[in-house]
């Protein structure tokens, strides 16, 4: 584990500010499509929001464990001696790229989300069958599908999870990343207007991007 779990959390936290345009609207749709009596009961509403996001983060962990397992196998084959250094460099470059993406200086990174479009085409019809959500199980299942929604930021995190050394560490990395996305995604469902305003502020995005770049480069220097 070179780019630490704190890095994963920060990537999710800052990155969600950028992705709030999509995930925030989806969270809004999922929140307001719940039955009125559920929405009017704060405890019940919070429970449903939890199920949606729990499902989403489980999917991230599953993808992270696959990436971690694949990456560790690759590492042993390619170069057991220098593999970790190569992956550290690779992960740093990716995190810096995400920083540039968040700041709005490298919009091209979003194109990597195309990689997940074929999976989403298969999963999306299943998700539609679960809507509108009427039970906690449906919310959890919908969250599981939502986790595979193509997203440049999630895929960048998965690339970094490749170098975490094992399936468990890959899953843990994605768990922390998912937890980092929670504050923005959950609150956007309720405070869409205010969060959107913050997210669309270019200055905020530049600050988030620079913070991530500084963090990635510090991690490289410390771990090299």
């Amino acid at each position, binding site marked *: 584990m070179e780019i630490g779990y704190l890095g994963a959390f920060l990537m999710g936290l800052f990155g969600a500010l950028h992705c709030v345009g999509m995930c925030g609207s989806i969270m*809004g*749709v999922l929140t307001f499509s719940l039955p009125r009596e559920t929405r009017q009961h704060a405890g019940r509403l919070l429970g449903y929001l939890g199920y949606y996001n729990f499902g989403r983060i489980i999917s991230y962990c599953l993808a992270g464990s696959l990436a971690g397992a694949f990456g560790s196998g690759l590492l042993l084959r390619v170069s057991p001696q220098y593999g970790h250094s190569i992956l550290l460099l690779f992960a740093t470059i990716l995190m810096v790229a995400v920083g540039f993406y968040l700041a709005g200086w490298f919009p091209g990174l979003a194109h990597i989300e195309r990689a997940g479009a074929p999976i989403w085409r298969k999963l999306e019809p299943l998700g539609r069958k679960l809507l509108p959500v009427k039970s906690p199980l449906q919310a959890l299942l919908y969250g599981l599908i939502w986790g595979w929604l193509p997203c440049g930021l999630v895929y960048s995190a998965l690339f970094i999870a490749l170098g975490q050394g094992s399936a468990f560490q890959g899953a843990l990395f994605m768990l922390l990343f998912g937890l980092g996305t929670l504050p923005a995604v959950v609150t956007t469902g309720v405070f869409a*207007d205010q969060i959107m305003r913050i997210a669309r502020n270019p200055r905020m995005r530049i600050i988030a991007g620079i913070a991530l770049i500084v963090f990635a480069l510090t991690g490289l220097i410390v771990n090299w």
Partner: protein
Amino acid sequence: MNTAVNYRMLGNSPEFTTLLRSLDIAAATDVAVILLGESGTGKELLARQIHCKSSRADAPFVAINCAALPEGLAESEFFGHAKGAFTGAVSDNPGRISQAEGGTLFLDEVGEMSLDIQAKLLRFLESGEFQPVGSLKQRHANVRLIAATNADLREKVKQGSFREDLYYRLNIVPFHVPPLRERSGDVELLMASITRDLAEQYKLPAPSYTKAAMACLRSHDWPGNVRELRNLCERMLILFSGREIDEGNLPREIRHQHRKQWTFSLPDTGICLEDLEKELLQQALEKADGNQSKAARILGLTRYAFMYRLKKYQLQ
């Protein structure tokens, strides 16, 4: 009014495909959404797509352009009227909301509604009930609402021209439709597809674009968005059908924006730079009433540089 038709939205950029995926999720629910975006970005087509992919697809899709409704007729247009309610009401009119029963009501330019209509619409959104003009009966309608605007509704609320309660009622799930200039790679895709469709419609051979022309189009700002692009494709097809279009064949506003916003426009016939410089020096002297320091300042030159030029052109 339209029933289900498959509306294909063109776009391959992450900015646009992301929106389409989110709208697909919204379509599977019955939540009221608002589409925010510049004019010409395709908000109505997106609303139709939501309708077509929703469980209401077999019911009507009724679009109302709130900016185009005459003040006096807006209420009757929305909620209908009873026969004899006002001069000219010779028969019952069910109104657009009733026409949308079971389907989707699309309110375009929602920020342009009068305050009076806003109050009535809010009541309908909250209770599903409304009262046709000149009728004592309350009526009920089950419609899904999709609103769209290119205005800053929050600003309108501050100015007092839009009701705050209606703003919060409509702004539950906002979707931002990206302008064409922010959709990376979509200009080429749309140009090719729209040109092909128009060529088929007009039965003309489609023109092709040189690399330079395409580069110029890519860097254009497209203030009119897809609507502007479509108009350009139509114009180019009619003028250059079957031929190759170079940068020079593109409309002036696109070519000029591509290059730079020049302070002076160089005429196509060309100029003599020395003559122009002499003329500018003379004009500056005239404006400064012969005061050379002041004339130098007008041209952004030091007094020494100004004097040097006067001497060079023997203008003293």
